């Protein structure tokens, strides 16, 4: 690798991460639906079967529960599996294994067994894939003790979050937003790793904090750009890690800005955004100089038609409007 920052896609970053992990550790292998011959539903694993072979890149039947459960068993028996579930909508077919086994066995066994499993899945809407391929369910999983939930939004995180996820003794779920796969970004070769514990301030600002993650990050940054033109300096926090939440970074920011908008592609009711808001209320109520606002998906199954789909999702204009309403309320 040269010393010059490379411009690559998020998809390529995911692929590089998987390839490097498998080459680095004989315990690591990838399995999932169409990860081998097909090259991955979102082409993330294209070419890996040819290079790494069938033992390490394993095509599975359409048996989410069986192969996720097999990943858990293999992890308990000393392997470091990366299991790909095509989309988080399909992960519901493996919910039993994830929630009842992976998340419980370490505690239920009194610490006799760990489950060092990595589960990757696509999430989110924006490609007109309709209601059974477009939902954002990471907030659900963030409810479950025992799991670590990651949402890489940048090329750097896509490239570097996998290694620490595999090193984690606990089950780690990585949610990759489908609209990010084609996104290009700079990959700085000087950066050799990232943490999977802290949120990041992607843009500093003093007037209002915008909290988001994953596919909504770039919409939120666009909103912050628009606000800057109006003289409103918005701080943008990329949560990165949805469980355990890095509450300290959130509270520190709000103590400075005293205003907050939470942007979450999940639905508002019972959502991750609700959890973030409640943490703020619990820990920083007296810092607030305005109500907490949220921009979430409309509460509908994500529809197929492009205009309806876009209308259902958080958009930069709505994010900017919510922030503006806090900083310069109309009277």
């Amino acid at each position, binding site marked *: 690798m040269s010393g010059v920052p490379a411009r690559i896609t998020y998809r390529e970053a995911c692929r590089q991460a998987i390839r490097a992990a498998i080459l680095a550790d004989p315990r690591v292998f990838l399995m999932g639906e169409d990860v081998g011959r097909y090259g991955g539903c979102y082409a993330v694993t294209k070419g890996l079967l040819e290079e790494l072979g069938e033992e390490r890149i394993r095509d599975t039947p359409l048996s989410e529960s069986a192969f996720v*459960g*097999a990943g858990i068993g293999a992890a308990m028996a000393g392997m470091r599996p990366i299991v790909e579930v095509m989309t988080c909508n399909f992960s519901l077919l493996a919910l039993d294994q994830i929630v009842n086994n992976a998340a419980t066995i370490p505690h239920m066994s009194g610490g006799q067994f760990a489950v060092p499993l990595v589960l990757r899945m696509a999430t989110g809407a924006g490609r007109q894939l309709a209601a059974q391929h477009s939902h954002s369910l990471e907030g659900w999983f963030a409810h479950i003790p025992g799991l670590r939930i990651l949402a890489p939004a940048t090329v750097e995180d896509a490239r570097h979050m996998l290694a620490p996820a595999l090193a984690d003794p606990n089950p780690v779920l990585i949610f990759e937003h489908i609209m990010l796969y084609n996104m290009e970004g700079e990959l700085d070769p000087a950066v050799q790793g990232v943490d999977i514990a802290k949120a990041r301030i992607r843009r500093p600002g003093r007037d209002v904090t915008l909290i988001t993650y994953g596919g909504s990050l770039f919409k939120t940054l666009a909103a912050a750009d628009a606000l800057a033109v109006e003289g409103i300096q918005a701080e943008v926090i990329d949560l990165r890690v949805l469980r355990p939440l890095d509450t300290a970074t959130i509270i520190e920011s709000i103590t400075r800005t005293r205003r907050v908008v939470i942007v979450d592609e999940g639905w508002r009711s019972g959502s991750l955004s609700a959890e973030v808001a409640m943490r703020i209320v619990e820990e920083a109520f007296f810092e607030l100089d305005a109500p907490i606002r949220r921009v979430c998906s409309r509460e509908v199954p994500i529809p197929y038609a492009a205009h309806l789909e876009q209308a259902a999702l958080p958009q930069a204009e709505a994010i900017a409007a919510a922030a503006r309403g806090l900083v310069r309320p109309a009277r």
Partner: protein
Amino acid sequence: MTAKVHLDRAHGVHLLREMLRIRRFEEKCAELYQAQKIRGFLHLYDGQEAVAVGVMQALGPQDAVVGTYREHGQAIARGIPMGPLMAEMFGKVEGCCRGRGGSMHIFDRQRRFIGGNAIVGAGLPLALGLALANRMQGRKAMIACFFGEGAADEGEFHESMNLASLWRLPVLFVCENNLYSMGTPVGIAEAETAIWQKAAAYRMGGEAVDGMDPVAVEVAARRAVERIREDGVPWLLECRTYRFRAHSMFDAQLYRTKEEVESWRKRDPINRLREWLEKAGHLHPADLERIEADVVAEIAEAVAFAEAGSPEPVEELERFVTMDEVPQ
């Protein structure tokens, strides 16, 4: 190892002793449950002892066992000492899972007992992964995965049979068909009640065996294990058995008749083996008295161990929710 079973005196008495240990242990559990020493759900194995005891004879220490939620018998037959088992049911820190699992979630890393699992069918995918890891790491070991016939109703059964056969994973699937999933008879839950015949649909070997006969189970298990070790392919062994007691402690058993239970009691695996051993001159009344006395003493010791145990400090409540390292 061979599939042949030499039922000499020592082995016959060993099988009997193992079944008695399970039976008496659980009788004590029922008593302690009513005395409120044990709480939660308690599912007794009473009547099914031949299955666990028979299958375990075929396994070596390198192999692993995936259990069900009715797993006291599986755990005892696998060699988990009664003390930590009883302490677990007492919810004590000396329990094998430090009181976090209870009756339905017995784990023992040292004896490769990978859990009582209270989600019907959820242990099957785990067994696949354990077997896959063994093969990828070059370990000549296999997995015995216990489940009830109710698990065959679940999608995970189909997914796991298919994947195990497809990937030629060394798993012995042990179906304990006790005819009822809670109160639902197998006849109204399964279109094909001969569970072992489902193996054919996955190009997998299988057979049914009298689950009330420990010798028959052991013979069938040894045969299956031998094939699995030779060919590296999975096997489905259906053990036809019966539980004499209710599904759990709070069950009026409206779904079956006393006559049916009585007719199965006549096939009690312990009585059958005892009678056979007595007829064969392998067991004298004094022998049985001595075995019973040993078992009673072992259980008394286990209860005393559990009674003397201490509760996990509440400050440790969240310990092991996430692990700091992978136990080696």
